């Protein structure tokens, strides 16, 4: 298994405040990696550094073998990033939004329509493609966000709080979708969240980040053994709270 994301002592300071503190992390191919932590723990900053949207203060990162500070364009070409609370052009339809993204990714004109239809089908919005995005529900918007990423055939998806603010039904659909993408297409997924029970459902490995520091990485079983002892159960929430109190 090859490492898709590799960081080495990645650090970002804003003035005197340290947002990300010496992050060393490896994410392998075909994993669904859950990136956990309270708000303001530095998850989004890490993601922005991985995409080359923010310069690290020190340390280095490789994403798909590229250096984000040197080759951000190559990374952006192959990585689908869904920002927290993603926005759309509300006065355009779902299809038009997708077409704009496809054009920005320089897809050949002949393939754009086909790709749009395929992406809409995958996320289950093919009946809704010609409605204005302004009329979409929150769950639909999030799924449209995923569709936008699928258009470029990503090798890696980085999802920032993909289930935030969704109702239980929307959340389930979203998680199933992510799970299916990873299973059927072999896409590596890194998703940040603070909703633990969902992460537990689909993630193969998790990392817990608190106050800029990565305090634990591993499968849920490993972490459970470490913190709760043998036979202590597998509740991620409990594990998380232990780490949180220690920090």
């Amino acid at each position, binding site marked *: 298994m090859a490492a898709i994301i590799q960081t080495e002592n990645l650090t970002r300071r804003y003035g005197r405040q340290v947002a990300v503190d010496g992050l060393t992390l490896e994410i392998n191919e075909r994993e669904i990696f859950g990136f956990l932590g309270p708000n303001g723990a530095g998850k989004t900053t890490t993601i*922005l550094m991985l*995409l080359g*949207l923010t310069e690290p203060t020190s340390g280095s990162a490789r994403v798909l073998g590229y250096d984000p500070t040197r080759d951000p*364009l*190559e990374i952006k*070409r192959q990585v689908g990033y869904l*920002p927290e609370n*993603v*926005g759309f052009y509300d006065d355009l339809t779902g299809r038009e939004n997708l077409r704009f993204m496809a054009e920005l990714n*320089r897809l050949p004109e002949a393939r754009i329509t086909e790709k749009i239809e395929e992406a809409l089908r995958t996320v289950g919005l093919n009946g809704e493609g010609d409605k204005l995005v302004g009329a979409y529900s929150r769950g639909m918007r999030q799924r449209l966000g995923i569709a936008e990423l699928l258009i470029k055939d990503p090798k890696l998806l980085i999802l920032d709080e993909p289930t935030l603010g969704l109702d239980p039904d929307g959340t389930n659909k979203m998680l199933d979708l992510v799970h299916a993408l990873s299973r059927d297409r072999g896409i590596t997924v890194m998703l940040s969240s603070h909703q633990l029970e969902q992460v537990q459902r689909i993630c193969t490995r998790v990392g817990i980040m608190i106050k800029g520091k990565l305090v634990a990485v591993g499968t849920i079983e490993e972490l459970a053994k470490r913190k709760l002892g043998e036979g202590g159960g597998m509740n991620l929430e409990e594990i998380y709270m232990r780490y949180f109190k220690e920090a």
Partner: protein
Amino acid sequence: MWTICKKELADHFSSTRFLILFCLILMVALVSTYMVATNIRQVLEGVSKPSNVFLLLFTTEGKFFSLVQFIAFFGPLLGIIMGFDAINRERQHRTLAKLVSQPIFRDAVINGKFLAGVITVSIALVSMMLLLTGMGLITVGVVPGWEEIGRLFVYLIVSIAYVSFWLGLAILFSILFRSLATSALAAVALWIFFSFFMGFASDLVADALSPVRNPRDPEEVVANQRVSDAASLVSPAVLYSKATSTILDPYRRSRGSVMIVGLLEKLSMERFQSPLPLDQSILVVWPYLTLLAALTLICFGLSYVIFMRQEIRSV
């Protein structure tokens, strides 16, 4: 960049505020030019062998203002409404983070937006000019010569550059301010200051720098006036109106202020003067044109640098 430019163009032409403003400007321009045209026609009957009549259509003051003054005044608004929400609207709708995480250079966003604005302004001004020219042809019945067409062409280019300055300024504000209302207000405030209050401001500067102690001393008065003129050149509105009025008036030989004369007097006075050729007219206002271009570039350059360095998060 072209993708963004294309989308912005579509946005501009379908946006209600652009259409409203454009229709308003077009209507006022048509009405006032029509009044001027009929006026010119009457005056022309008493004059033999007039020259450069066609340009008078644009420079003569009708009931309120000449077309050139009108454009100098409302053109900026056109630039402002297209630029004031260029970047911060993307922030508010949370599309900026998405946009910059696509495989495009970050400057493509701002270049595309600026270019789309300039194209829109060009289309708007050129089509308006053509309409007015057509109407002038019909009502006045004078065919413009090549020289006059050349002058109008230069005028158009300068006007587009002028509106682009305001567009660049508005985009700069849209980068600096998070809120749409703040950036719109800031741009409009600057517009009002430069168009209305520049005269007072430059007088103030002049009085401070070279006060007139004795109003009868011509040297002091002249020195005061010189400083005031120089100070007012800070305003792109002043630069623009001085530049275009010279370009459109072949009889104007200097950049200084001129006497205001009526239409008939002007026509009859012109018979004793020979007009400047177009290139000489341009030469007269060349410093103004360079200054205007420089201001536009500074504005755009500043937006460019700030946008490239700005953090994308904190949306």
